[in-house]
């Protein structure tokens, strides 16, 4: 209970600080970077639910993002339905896609590398489809107009988008906190640690994994609407880019898989690295080279991510306080 209070207090504290950031930082650049960090943390958290908690790595997580983005954008451009309703459709579209992909691949017992690769193939399939059919605008893409207003989920200033991304990020943290405390979350962790044993304990592993990928899909769908309304353009290579699939697993692995704050910390670290690399040598490719090196180093030497590094130190010095915060109370 003690640990819970501490965690909630720290969470609230950092939330309040981040909520008031726009009052102190007026530079559009920093607001945009922070917006992007929240967005990446949010989409990383969606990957974390299936990859980090349930242990099912996906290489095609972008498919939910792209499908959600197309869902709300097509509703807007073809039927005039405002994105505030469109985002709900996007969430359902993402969850439905999650159900389809999850049902097909988990029911046939795909796991590990095979599951990772089949999600990649699904994303590729959708990219080709989006490129070939008419209602997505095909290869030309969809152009959205900028009409600020809550019903369009668009805002006059970057600060509006900052709060939109901030809200998404906070919701994703709350979902992860709920997972840490719920029976469902414990079932996912059991599946990750030993699927046969989980099955033997009476957990319906198929159902749990499908639920997890549906949550991931729902979150990805909303992310798609956010992106489309902010950047006003969508085409198949953007909607189903492998780059975003990699980014969402990267921030989570760097920060710490299966932890509440891993994706957020990973997003912060990687975006700062990215900005520094861009500042030093502004040549395309450099920051991604650094990402690749970081990924390999983390996988090889810090399998629990940056959070795991803190946790180890905490274990040595102060056993309870921050450790419980960072580990999301797992062993308290």
């Amino acid at each position, binding site marked *: 209970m003690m640990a819970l209070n501490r965690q909630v207090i720290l969470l609230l504290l950092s939330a309040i600080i981040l909520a008031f950031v726009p009052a102190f930082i007026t530079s559009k650049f920093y607001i945009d970077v922070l917006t992007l960090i929240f967005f990446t943390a949010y989409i990383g958290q969606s990957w974390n639910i299936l990859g980090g908690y349930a242990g099912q*790595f996906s*290489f095609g997580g972008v498919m939910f993002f792209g499908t959600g983005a197309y869902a709300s954008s097509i509703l807007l451009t073809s039927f005039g339905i405002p994105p505030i309703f469109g985002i709900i459709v996007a969430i359902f579209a993402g969850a439905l896609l999650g159900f389809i992909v999850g049902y*097909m*691949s988990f029911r*046939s*017992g*795909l796991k*590990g*590398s*095979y599951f*990772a*690769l*089949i999600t*990649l*193939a*699904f994303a*590729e*399939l959708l990219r*080709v*489809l989006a*490129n*070939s059919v008419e209602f997505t605008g*095909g*290869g030309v893409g969809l152009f959205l107009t900028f009409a600020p207003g809550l019903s369009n989920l668009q805002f006059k200033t970057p600060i509006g988008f900052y709060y939109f991304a901030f809200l998404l990020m906070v919701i994703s943290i709350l979902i992860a906190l709920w997972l840490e405390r719920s029976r469902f979350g414990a079932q996912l962790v059991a599946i990750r640690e030993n699927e046969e044993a989980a099955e033997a304990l009476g957990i319906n592993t198929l159902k749990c994994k499908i639920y997890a990928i549906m949550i991931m899909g729902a979150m990805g769908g909303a992310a798609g609407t956010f992106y489309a309304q902010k950047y006003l353009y969508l085409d198949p290579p953007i909607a189903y880019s*492998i780059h975003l699939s*990699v980014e969402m*697993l990267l921030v989570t*692995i760097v920060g710490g898989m299966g932890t509440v704050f891993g994706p957020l910390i990973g997003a912060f670290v990687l975006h700062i690295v990215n900005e520094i690399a861009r500042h030093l040598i502004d*040549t*395309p*490719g*450099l920051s*991604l*080279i650094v*990402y*690749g*090196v970081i*990924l*390999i180093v983390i*996988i*090889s030497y810090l*399998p629990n991510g940056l959070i795991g590094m803190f946790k180890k130190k905490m274990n040595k010095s102060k056993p309870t306080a921050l450790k419980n915060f960072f580990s999301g109370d797992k062993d308290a």
Partner: protein
Amino acid sequence: MLSASLSMLPAAIINGLMYGAIYALVALGLTLIYGVLHIINFAHGAMLMLALYAAFFLFKLVQIDPYISIFIVTPIAFMFGYVIYRYGIGVLSKGKDQNILLITLGLSIIIENSALFFFSGDQQTVSLSYGFEAFDLGFMYLSYPKVISFFAALVICALLWALMSLTDLGRAIRAVAKERQGARLVGINVEHIFAVTFGIGIACLGAAGCMMLPIFYVDPYTGNIFVLVAFTIVVLGGMGSVLGALLGGFIIGITESVGGLLLGESLGQIGISLIFILILIFKPTGLFGSKV
């Protein structure tokens, strides 16, 4: 429209066979590595891209014909693969399946973006003096490079088969693939064999890269196009099966060109990911079990 497509069908099939042989070579490297080391090399496409660049620069800087470059790039690719496994992937992965997948993913990101950093994102092609000459088959023209690549790919597949079945090295590789503890007990240096196998797998890419250069273009993202193609062939043929990789290559090559003919250039690409998904869901062992 349809009858016009049908009359072009034989040409599409022959074109598909030509590409299929090269795809098979790419997939052969992947399936060999999987069959022996049980790892999935996600950096396969990126390494193929490097081989294409190697052949490109050999042509551009010292005017070596890409088909001659096979004899230069292949051994270099072998050494690259050997070193990168022995002192890189093998050391870092610590044996976990998903670790290796992620490490090779990291490797592919590094290779791809290093290429972008050093070679820029421009598409590069070579123009050979005989590049536009073609055999007249009556119903279609078949360019020299396609035919040379087709036969060269088949020769290399045959050499690989001979290496695996007739030599001591091949016996050792097969022994390690079947029973690595037993192989260690009879005195085979398992780590060395792993690295050699990885090297051979990458050497296949070295050769494939040289053969592809006269037909395709190369840019830092070329690998992305072929990585899913290679994985599809490998799961289609059965992970670890050499014969499967060869047949899978032909099937995918034909699917691609016939799909492009019947469905149009854009939707035609759907065949590969669709086959990949369907095979994994309905027959994950592929067409030919999983023996090396």
